[in-house]
């Protein structure tokens, strides 16, 4: 069974936000509009978070870090969901079952990364955007929680394709939209358990670290940064 993971190389990332836009379009995430965004109601499965970077004694710099769901191996959200609407599937993806979620928002408060979002209102798309929704991803109703799925539907599609061609899944068959889009090639995706995969190799790099790993959540999103990670959290 593969163990899907992502590597984000902060030394390559230009903070262009192409991944953010790609994610939004791919997963039918409705744009919030300036008013709702100001009220803290915007949904984004992947966003850039400003960390204060720079090593001690050097000039401080602002680092923008792409923040998707960490798909933790010990996810704090899964344990607290009262109705099993969020669960870890066999390949380690932390999934959300929209038709079952009761919208209690316990998972959103338990997640130390604050990457889970709640549909405060019915999602709305301006005019023609509604016709451009992806048929592969369900549109979430008002009142449920959603989050980055590592573009789970792409895994389904890749598996179907591989089965049709009578071959096993190969590296690169399944890649989330953000990774595919990244023009700086700062994002890599694959099976962390496959020693030949790029993610497995990069995850062992001396530059590798995980966010809030001291909490014991064991995130499967791994960041790369040269020098000591100066991100003040």
């Amino acid at each position, binding site marked *: 069974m593969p163990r899907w993971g992502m590597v984000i190389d902060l030394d390559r990332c230009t903070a262009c936000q192409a991944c953010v836009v790609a994610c939004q379009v791919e997963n039918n995430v409705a744009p919030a509009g300036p008013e709702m965004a*100001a*009220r*803290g*109601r*915007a949904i984004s499965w992947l966003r850039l*978070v*400003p*960390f*204060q970077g720079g090593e001690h004694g050097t000039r401080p710099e602002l680092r923008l870090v792409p*923040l998707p769901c960490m798909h933790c191996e010990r996810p*704090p959200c899964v*344990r*607290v*969901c*009262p*109705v*099993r*609407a969020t669960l870890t599937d066999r390949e380690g993806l932390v999934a959300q079952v929209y038709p*079952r*979620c*009761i*919208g*209690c*928002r*316990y998972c*959103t*408060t*338990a997640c*130390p*990364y*604050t990457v889970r*979002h*709640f*549909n*405060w*209102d*019915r999602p709305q798309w301006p005019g023609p955007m509604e016709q451009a929704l992806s048929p592969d991803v369900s549109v979430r*109703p*008002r*009142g*449920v*929680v959603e989050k980055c799925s590592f573009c789970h539907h792409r895994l389904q599609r890749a598996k179907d394709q591989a089965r049709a061609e009578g071959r096993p899944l190969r590296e690169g068959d399944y890649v989330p939209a953000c990774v595919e889009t990244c023009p700086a090639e700062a994002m890599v995706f694959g099976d962390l358990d496959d020693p030949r995969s790029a993610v497995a190799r990069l995850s062992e790099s001396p530059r590798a670290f995980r*966010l*809030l790993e001291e*909490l014991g959540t064991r995130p499967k999103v791994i960041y790369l940064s040269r020098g000591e990670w100066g991100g*003040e*959290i």
Partner: protein
Amino acid sequence: MERSEFDSDERLLRPIEHTGRAFWIGSGILLAIGVWGLFAWVIQLRRGLAVTGLNVPVYWGLYITNFVFFIGISHAGTLISAILRLAHAEWRRSITRAAEVITVLVLFFGMGCVILDLGRPDRVLNVLKHGNFTSPLLWDVASVATYLIASTIYLYLPLIPDIAILRDRMPKRRWFYRRLALGWTGAPRQRQLLERAIAAMAVIVIPIAVSVHTVVSWVFAMTVQPMWHSTIFGPYFVVGAIFSGIAAILIAMAIIRKAYHLENYLKPIHFNNLGILLLVMALLWFYFTFAEFLTTYYGGEPTHMVVFLSKTEGKFSPVFWTMVVSCFVIPFSLLCNRRTRGTIWGPVAASVSVELGMWLERFLIVVPSLSNPRLPLTAAAYSPSWVEWSLLAGFIATFILLYVLFTKLFPIVSIWEIREGREHSLEEVSKRVRSYLPALAEAGK
């Protein structure tokens, strides 16, 4: 002011037999506020939680605060009344029922708060269909449901002999009382069974009540969020719950005493004794709060300190210091002074202050931790919307209204227990005291 015993016990039935103008006016106002709350709820059902002030990262706000607060108040009754009963505290007789009713009624509102907070209240039964027992929320569901059942039984059992009194003398609603009285005649065998059942329920209800607010605290403590992930949260919440519960009894007693002229039943001694209990809880509350904050401060973990400082000197500091004053300074100074504690207004003023303070305490547990996420997100500020305030007002008003209606259907002071006190306890207590001491003949040896 001495009345004959018959006269004064009559007084306990008066609220049921006679209804004055004050009742209709009071109930009318409470009903109007309740209907306003209902209107706010309809708006929320139609437009979703968008009508609240909640946001990312403050996903929980007033509704969860109210949930913790109401469930806390529920410890008034059953727990206090059970402890006093088991301790054979004779002064309990005129206050136990008033306390037990608070418990049963307020639990519905506590559970109601969770339903208000759901994004999809239509799916609430998923909690039973797909229940996940690793979730502390499910522990809550189980524990609160058990408590509701146990405390309803515990309220009902001592009510049976009084319902029988009503059945025998009320021309109105006789069918209702007859059914509820379960054929009570007061035969020795029935009395014996009843007393045994009440004693058993008093024992059972205490661990259940403790479990209720413990698991409420675990909803927070089982996450890794700063200033939630604390081992003392269980007992801290239970202490706060009993604290706000006793305050609720005192306020209810003062209103009942005034409205129904029960000065002979709810005497200054009752207020004094409950005042002492409230004082003890104020000290315990201070001890826990102090321990919790000092531990956080000395640990000095940055993420915890952000929340700590937002409470003590940051954005939430006005709320925090108001809480300290109204949970500790005011009740402590009113209650440790015998002159103010011995009055009616002293303990009642302390109680009002405690209720306010404990609500603020619940708010300060829920909101500041969420307002300061670990990662540097641009956090929007939370200010509750009119819908959230209206629902709080509506809940409080409806709770009081139901309480008033209870006093119109059943005696709020237990008639048979008062009589039992007069007829048996005087002798029983002196016998008990004698049994503690060496007999004169033995002492001489």
